[in-house]
């Protein structure tokens, strides 16, 4: 799970932008890591599609045994979030009581430190918080 700075620049996670991939053939959205191939139609050309950042929690788990990068943050909630634009993706949900998480909660994206890359850089990306607007 540690990546070099070069690899992170090349193909890493969404970093500072939250986006999905939109298929040139069928127009369906896939999560941001599906850069090469559309799982819906088999198409091979995808474009970045910016997401507003709001969505709904459709599923969740609470992690008690974290990977290295999340050590110290457990227990934390990882949810499946159906973004308003239609794509479903996993992401951590912060600031919710693990015993009180509810499917159907509206959530909004915010910026958090994700991990220290093993060349010392800090990788930021999106986690979600309850959307109280």
């Amino acid at each position, binding site marked *: 799970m540690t990546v070099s700075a070069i690899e992170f620049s090349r193909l890493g996670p969404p970093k*500072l*932008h939250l986006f999905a991939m939109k298929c040139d053939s069928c127009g369906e959205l896939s999560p941001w890591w599906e850069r090469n191939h559309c799982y819906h139609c088999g198409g091979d050309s995808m474009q970045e599609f*910016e997401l507003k950042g709001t969505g709904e929690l459709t599923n969740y788990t609470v992690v008690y045994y974290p990977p290295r990068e999340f050590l*110290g*943050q457990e227990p934390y909630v990882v949810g499946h979030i159906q973004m308003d634009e239609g794509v479903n993706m996993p992401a951590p949900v*912060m*600031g919710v009581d693990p015993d009180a998480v509810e499917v159907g909660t509206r959530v909004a994206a*915010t*910026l*958090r*430190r*994700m991990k*220290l890359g093993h060349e010392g850089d*800090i990788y*930021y990306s999106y*986690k979600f918080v309850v959307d109280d607007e």
Partner: protein
Amino acid sequence: MAVLTSYGAYVPQYRAPLGEIQKFYGRPGRPRSRGLATPGLDEDTLTMAFEAARQALKGERGLGAVITATQAPPFGLRKLSQTLGRALRLDDGAVNIDLGANATGLLDAFRIAQTLDVGPTLVVATDHLVSYRDRVADVLSAGAAAAFVIDPGRKAEGIAELGPQSRESVEAYDVWMLGREQEPRFRMEVLFDAYAKATSAAAAGLETSTERPTAKYTSICPSQPHPQVLRGLAKLGAQPKQLEATQFVGDIGNVGAASVGLALCLGLDASRKGSTLLALAYGGGESVAQEITVTRKPKSIGTREMIDAGEQIAVGTYYRWTEGRQQQPH
């Protein structure tokens, strides 16, 4: 005349028990703060700035400049303002200014924003002071962020006008850090004298340029309501009720560059059309005072609720979370 159009704040939800921390190090005396607002492991000055800015911006994107003021940027070589701008999806080409500031930084940023001619300017003060061992009980290390949008072109929609500033600086060896040292050094005995001298002089100077007595402000928003500061202000006629709404250091600790920002957010939340706020910041021997006039009652962002809400964490948790931070970027 610079116009304030919106503001936002972020206070981390965790509170470390200062009293227990002091006991742990055998430091005498009553803790000067009930708790220390402690950023979580996945937070830092950039993420806190993002949260405060998100609240202030509410979808607005056409910013011409981003100015950040902090003592604890995550990166050397890479600007906090630039990274924040990218995270907020601002157009490239915005002017990015990083102020490596002490607690006066926010008001320095306001001064710059007043003179920039690039359209709406986002000003964010964000800080996470981490000090250690025998220092921790003296410097009330905590983290928070406050964001303001300044737009001279939007007088009609503005909520306040930024008035004149007055500055006073004294040569004082109260708080200092050498170069990129990890921890501040300070002399408490000098600190309190310098507080009193500089803040009173700055406030007095403002009385002259604005012709408004200190006692006539609706609210005084100080970065640190130290007793010496309050004594100095009292000599100028300030009343306790002017400070009622804006006190927070006793709840969550000193948040460095964000302190005067939080005080200002508290003042704005409680204000109405016509209210006058005196922003008063002190850092490293210098004090800056600024007059702010509220032109339209702002919708409260709930700064007091953010301060009052808080999840207690144990002493051990506080150390686990902050221990590495001195070696790592904050």
